[in-house]
């Protein structure tokens, strides 16, 4: 907007033009040159990295715990050296975008600016990050456009004990234990394991062996030992009421137990017992008296 050319070249216009072009030089873009970053180790050699607004430092600069990163550059407003109101070095953790700033000290006339950065300048949060991105912000009042330039990455290297210490500090800085209002982790109750039955085949084997025991018992009783029911007609003749009643009451007692097992409650069971019990008692005493009579007669 300032460098318009005119065909009428009077002295006055020439003067105005000269003034405007000067102003344009002064009010260009805030930029820098002669920039370098030096990692000065204590008592050791210094590694220098050159960079410019268009060419950031390639690769990450490793910053040890005793190293100092010295960044120096010359600030230019357009093509002239100048001092901007804002000359900050920004250090950003790329993932969370958490950023801190370090004002550069700038000489007024020469525009020479420098900043020293070491571990103790960086907060624990950034120090424990794997890598930090460094940017340079230059801006000031007036017409010149401000600029923000990425100049490279640094990698703070920490020994394990220091790292643990800084991690602790970081947690403290972040408000360790302080509540954060957000969704919490999901929890699902883990149930106790259900009781397990053994494999069916084993169960069936033992089931069959139990049933076989009953079969064995009956085999021993009847064919081998000669068990029989030959006295039944005699018994029924001698005590025609009490024998069937006694045996029926024995069966119904077992029936009551079965009903209790499957569906009855205790009161129904007790009622059933109250009915069947006396029958069993009285018919049983008669029936057994008849059995004794047979024994006394020598029939048994």
């Amino acid at each position, binding site marked *: 907007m300032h460098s318009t050319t005119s065909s009428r070249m009077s002295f006055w216009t020439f003067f105005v033009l000269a003034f405007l072009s000067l102003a344009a030089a002064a009010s260009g873009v805030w930029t820098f040159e002669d920039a370098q970053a030096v990692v000065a180790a204590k008592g050791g050699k210094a590694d220098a990295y050159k960079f410019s607004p268009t060419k950031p430092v390639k690769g990450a600069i490793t910053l040890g715990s005793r190293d100092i990163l010295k960044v120096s550059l010359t600030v230019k407003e357009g093509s002239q050296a100048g*001092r901007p*109101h804002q000359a900050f070095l920004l250090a950003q953790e790329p993932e969370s975008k958490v950023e801190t700033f370090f004002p550069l000290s700038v000489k007024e006339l020469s525009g020479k600016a420098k900043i020293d950065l070491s571990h103790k300048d960086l907060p624990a949060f950034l120090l424990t990050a794997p890598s930090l991105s460094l940017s340079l912000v230059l801006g000031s009042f007036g017409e010149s456009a401000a600029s923000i330039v990425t100049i490279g990455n640094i990698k703070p290297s920490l020994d394990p004990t220091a790292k643990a210490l800084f991690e602790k500090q970081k947690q403290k800085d972040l408000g360790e234990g302080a509540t954060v209002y957000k969704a919490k982790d999901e929890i*699902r109750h883990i149930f106790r394991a259900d009781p397990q039955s053994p494999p069916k085949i084993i169960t069936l084997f033992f089931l069959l062996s139990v*049933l076989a025991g009953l079969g064995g018992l009956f085999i021993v009783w009847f064919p081998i030992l000669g068990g029989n029911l030959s006295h039944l007609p005699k018994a029924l003749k001698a005590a025609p009421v009490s024998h069937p009643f006694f045996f029926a009451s024995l069966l119904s007692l077992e029936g009551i137990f079965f009903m209790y097992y499957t569906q009855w409650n205790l009161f129904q069971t007790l009622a059933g017992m109250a009915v069947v019990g006396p029958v069993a008692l009285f018919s049983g005493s008669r029936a057994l008296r008849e059995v004794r009579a047979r024994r006394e007669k020598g029939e048994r």
Partner: protein
Amino acid sequence: MRLQPQLDMASRKAFLLFFVSLFVSWVSAAPLTGGRILAVIEERSDNAKYSQFLMDLRGRGYDVKLESAKKDTLALLEHGEKAWDHVILFPPKSKGYGPALTPQKLLDFTKLGGNILVLTSPSSIPEQIRELARELDIGLPPKDYTVVDHFNYDTVSKSEKHDVILATRPAVSSAVHNCFSGTQDDLIAFRGAGHTLGNGPLLVPILTAPRTAYAYDSKEDFAYAQDPWAAGTQMQLVSAMQARNNARITLVGSVDMFSNEFFNMKVQRPGSTESRKTANKEFCKDIAAWTFGEKGIVKVNAIRHYLSNEPNAPVNPNMYRIKNDVTFEIELSEYNIDRWAPFKVSSGDSLQLEFTMLDPYYRVPLLPASTSSNYTTYTTSFKIPDQHGVFAFRVNYKRPYLTYIDEKYSVTVRHFAHDEYTRSWDISGAWVWIAGIAVTITGWIGFCALWLWSAPVAAKAGLKKTE
């Protein structure tokens, strides 16, 4: 008159009806959390500077009273009750606000649920506000520290100071229901002071400074910012504290933001070619609406829990059994300026139900099941843990920008009753024992029959059958 008593009655009725309807419309127009606003403004003439903002509030049904902080009868509380529902504090011309607005009184006011909108400017942050901010863990800069940004300033207002900075609304986040991230390319003009926030969960940023902004002492004539007070996105321009009782205190670093001048201003970013109108009017409306409880208010309409698998299960019983399948439902509404709307949980967030006895046994997400015109039903089902005791269904939904929900309903969880266990014949391992009993019974019956009726076979074996 006496000749027409009928007509007189009719007109009287009409008159009454008119007033009743007027009253009804006035009542329904009153905002949700009460409409009495006290605006503390020193000079009546300043009223004109903020007339659009104040008119907007009046248009939404608020009864805005302008009072001077110096007025003797000014009081936030009356007989232990709030005399106002909301307070707007404009920066005073003099050093402080006077005895009616001490930090203690302001906090007492919020304890009763009153909302406060604090507007400050770099040159006027009274000591009362500093003390209040200290209590809230908000860091305020010293006097005259102004925020500037050489990247996002307004070029139209021709300010050499670059102090009318153009901020953008907070980014839309999937995790946070942010009431302030409206139209994303809105430009909000801001001229004032920044502040920093502590780590508390009750504090929320509303407008964050751009990355390249910084605060410096505008009265000291430093050639360059050697020691800025704060810079970058760690600095806030507008922030709020929502207390545990859902009372809100919003701190704005720029009173100019709310002025007619900024509402109507056309602004332009450096490097851009066209100038645009600021979105201050909408943003300030959002700030006021949120602070005074017209936005970000979430209400629980109903809570239901019942057995999942039974069609006629009673709703909200007092007792469940362990391992019951239970369904829990909650109906949530969100207030939006003038009506209740269905509340929608952000996609990256989760509304969670806890089933707790001392510790949560379950923390499961509640998912939207149905939506009506003014509420959403969130539901989940789970199996009650195998632990008896007194449990509670708890929905503890506390998120920034929203009123806190903490609902807790206790139920007893009992053990299996004796007739609710699996029957033994259904357990294959028990078959052997059941068979054992059956064998014993059969054997016993057989033995009884033999005892009663067996004849000796002495000739054959020489033994009595049953000895």
